[in-house]
Each structure stands twice: as structure tokens, then as C-alpha cells.
């Protein structure tokens, strides 16, 4: 019973976090939401009895991808003119 409740909450939380990560206007908050989403996904893999995937998801999906997103965010903000990759229109 309590496990089913946990699973349902997890599914709802992941849907909500995914929605927030995509739609949030504040990029930094979206990235933090994405990291939280990765951790919840790792929990999901654990619940699906796939600990290998849970480890990889927590380390790569949440940790390193989050770090990559954070550093790109920081570099885009600190020197927009020095960016050799032309930012697209949708990034305004």
C-alpha cells in the first residue's frame, strides 16, 4: 500500500518537475529543477529494480549534466559577446 502511494507520488512529481524544467522562464531555476528531476528518475530506476541505471542516472543524468548546464549558463551570462556559437532567437 505505502509503496504504491510512493510510486504514484513519484510519477506525479516527475511529471510536474519535467513540466517545470521545460516551461520555467528563469533558466537557473529550470536547471535546478532538471537536476531534481534526474534524482527522482534515479529513484524510479531503483523502484523498477534497475540499480545499475539508477547509479548512472544519478551520476550522469543529474550530476554531470546538471554541472554542464550550470557552467554553460554561467558562461552565457558572463560574456555573451565572446560566445562563438551564435545564440538562437528562442534564447532571448
Amino acid at each position: 500500500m505505502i509503496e504504491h502511494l510512493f510510486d504514484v507520488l513519484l510519477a506525479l512529481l516527475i511529471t510536474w518537475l519535467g513540466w517545470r524544467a521545460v516551461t520555467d522562464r528563469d533558466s537557473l531555476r529550470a536547471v535546478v529543477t532538471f537536476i531534481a528531476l534526474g534524482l527522482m528518475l534515479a529513484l524510479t530506476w531503483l523502484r523498477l529494480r534497475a540499480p545499475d541505471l539508477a547509479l548512472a542516472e544519478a551520476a550522469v543524468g543529474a550530476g554531470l549534466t546538471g554541472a554542464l548546464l550550470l557552467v554553460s549558463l554561467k558562461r552565457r551570462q558572463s560574456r555573451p559577446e565572446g560566445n562563438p556559437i551564435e545564440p538562437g532567437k528562442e534564447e532571448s
Partner: protein
Amino acid sequence: MIRKLFVGAAASALFGLLAWSLYHLPAHPAGLTVQAHAALPRSGVSHPVTAVLLNYRGYDTLLEIAVLLLAVVGVWSLRAMPAGGPEARGAPILGALLRLIVPSLLLVGGYMLWIGAFAPGGAFQGGALLGGALVLLLLGGLGGALLRHIGLLRVALSAGLLVFIAVGALSMAVTGTLLQYPEGLAGTLILVIESAAMVSIGLTLGAMFHGGRPVRAEGAGDDE
């Protein structure tokens, strides 16, 4: 407006299709579980996931490691990034913390690699920990010196793929099939491949975080 409606309808249709196919999945899939478990004693490892990744479906993993190397080549081709310059120095407290955390990350990464033969773990998880250690070093201003040895870095980045291909070629010469390990040697060969792959994966992730082809920064030559 029309486009939004269209995208919404397409997304709903896709969701419906996925939900429908998920609902109709068999409760007890036949799959290859029985065969995979039956062949486990001959695979060289006792953890089924590692057996699938490095033995049964070794070719997939070989290509995955090639993709990781291609990703670094892609990032490096975009721009050069000074490594280990004077501006990269971090805060002293962070440096003291790194002296504690980085060695333990390396230790746990090695443990992950070793335990992958028997339990959840393996080269990707261990490599991710190495990558995390490298990210921390870069944040603390200590990793630049590591990335500046560009020749060594290139060798280490491609080591995973090269060792994998070498093992594949050797096993092909012995058994006649690509990545069909010789009987009795599978465990050793898997560990050799995974060790090289772990180093490459960790450095790949760290190099991605660095964000460009490392070049010598001005005034960085004083601490060689």
C-alpha cells in the same frame, strides 16, 4: 494557433499510442532472460547487466564509447579554452575540501569498476565518478594543470575505444568472431576493457565540463 493545436494533437496521439502499447505489454515477458542467465557462468562475470553490456552485446558498448569520443572531438572543434590560467584559481577552503573528496571519489570509482563484475556498478558508473572528481578539480582551479598535457590527454581519452578495438581484434584472431572472447579469458578481458573505458569516460566528462580544446593559458607555466 493552428500549429499549437497540431502539435498538441500529435503529442496526445503519441502519448496515447505509448500508453496503449505499455498497457498491452505482457505481464511476464519471455525475452532472453532465461538464455542470459543460463550463459552467465561462461560470460566471465556474475552480474547479468555487466555480462550483457560487455559480453553478449559488447558491440553496442563499443559504439557507445566511440560516441563519447566523438562528443569530445565535437566540443574541441568548437573553440579553444585556456586551461590552468591564473584566473582559474579557486578559493582556499574549496582546495582543502578537494584534498579530502577527490581521493575518496577515485577510490569509490575504482571500487565501482571492480564490483561491476558481481553487482551493480561498472565502467560507466566508475567513469562518472572520475568525471565528477575532475569537475570538482576544475571548479577548484586544480584541474587545468591536468588538462594541459594535451598529448597524454588525447591518449587517455581514446584509450577506452582503442583497447576495446584491440581486444575485439585479438579475440577475432583467436576465435574468429568479433568480441567473442576466448573461453576462460572473458573475465580478464572485460576488466581490461572496463579499466581503460573508465579512464576515458571520466576524462571525457571532465573535458566536456572544461568546454573547449584545452590550450596553455598565459602565465600558467610557473607550476610545471
